């Protein structure tokens, strides 16, 4: 049976470069024996002494790393900030672009139903691939000590933004992306609600009668909302005019929607008839009431949030 020392030395040598192994093994074994002897001489039992000595030397993988001057980190401080920056730039651009393009191609191929899911799936796949390969490349550079030869940092690189910027680019980009989706969905739902009609084709989700006035009006309000998002990003913070405009736009959207919901004019009759449960007047009322409450809460929250943030961080 091999002793604990044998196993310890073997475990250490496993990750030490081969050409130095024998010498390190001989020296390490000798040192361990010296240490055990020292403890035994002080009256410790031989078995216990061996255990304490090996415990003192610690994890063999760590000791081996010290012998071979290996770094115990995937990406160290030399490369970390460059890695982080590159990841942010690539992950925020490549997967969405590839996903959208893939989704559009899929939709053009005559499969609009699967386009959104397929686009998201591809975007996630691309994101995982990008993250993996970028990280791998940096981990290799860390181990080979590759020089990056990047220009030194200068004061000219300081951001020109207001130092107290509240509205960050990711926030604004997410809000704008969401608005664009909703704006695109309003006309799309007329053709592709994904709810098959009895006679083939699709049942529109919203009442087509609203196209005479209310749907174009809501679209205009959403476009105005888009403008506010852009103005807000440019200002970098909530200002009282922005809060007022935001409140007006929110109310301009919420009031017609609530009123249409309560008078049963928002959803298309065809769509309501398509679902037996929804067809019951009581149930339809419940859906309308809940939707109205949710809409009001969202509007109030949006307005309150803008006021609070403005007061917390006055210009």
């Amino acid at each position, binding site marked *: 049976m091999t002793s604990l020392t044998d196993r310890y030395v073997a475990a250490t040598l496993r990750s030490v470069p081969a050409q130095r192994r024998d010498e390190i093994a*001989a020296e*390490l074994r000798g040192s361990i024996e010296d240490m055990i002897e020292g403890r035994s001489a002080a009256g410790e039992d031989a078995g216990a002494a061996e255990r304490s000595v090996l415990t003192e030397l610690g994890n063999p993988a760590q*000791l081996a790393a010290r012998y071979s001057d290996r770094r115990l980190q995937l990406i160290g401080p030399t490369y970390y900030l460059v890695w982080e920056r590159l990841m942010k730039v690539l992950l925020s651009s490549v997967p969405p672009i590839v996903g959208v393009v893939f989704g559009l191609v899929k939709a053009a191929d005559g499969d609009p139903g699967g386009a959104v899911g397929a686009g998201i799936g591809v975007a996630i796949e691309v994101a995982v691939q990008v993250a993996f390969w970028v990280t791998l490349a940096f981990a290799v550079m860390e181990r080979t000590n590759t020089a990056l030869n990047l220009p030194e940092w200068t004061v000219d690189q300081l951001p020109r933004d207001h130092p107290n910027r509240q509205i960050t680019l990711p926030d604004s980009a997410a809000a704008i992306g969401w608005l664009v989706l909703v704006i695109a969905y309003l006309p799309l739902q007329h053709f592709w609600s994904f709810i098959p009609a009895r006679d083939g084709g699709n049942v529109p989700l919203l009442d087509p009668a609203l196209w005479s006035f209310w749907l174009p009006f809501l679209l205009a309000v959403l476009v105005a909302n888009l403008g506010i998002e852009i103005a807000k990003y440019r200002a970098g913070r909530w200002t009282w005019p922005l809060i007022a405009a935001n409140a007006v736009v929110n109310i301009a959207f919420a009031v017609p929607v609530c009123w249409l919901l309560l008078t049963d004019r928002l959803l298309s009759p065809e769509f309501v008839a398509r679902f037996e449960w929804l067809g019951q007047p009581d149930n339809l009322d419940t859906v309308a009431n809940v939707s109205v409450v949710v809409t009001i809460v969202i509007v109030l929250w949006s307005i309150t949030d803008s006021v609070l943030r403005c007061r917390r961080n006055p210009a």
Partner: protein
Amino acid sequence: MPTDEILRIHLQELRRGTVVVASLVALRRPDYGYALLQHLTSNGFPVDANTLYPLLRRLEEQGLLTSEWNTEEKRPRKFYRTSDEGETVLTRLLADMADVQTSMTALIEGVDR
């Protein structure tokens, strides 16, 4: 009142480089790993075995130590010794430590005045 942990970290930082200097001084007289460890510890330079052994190898690779296997005793031992190059580096390191001490004294006295 700093916590023990903060104090420990700063002491460790302060001590880090001194192990190299102490080893180069002690190895003017050839010695092997474990004996050096004990010698340093008993002279007020406590050092972990898993730090010292790899450090000796690194100093040898840098040419600051030379080594020789001694097979006369009951088990073969690798004896390290400060090389000429090591002695040159050591002189600079000791001078620098003295400089640090001088500067620190001046700084302390300057503040007190």
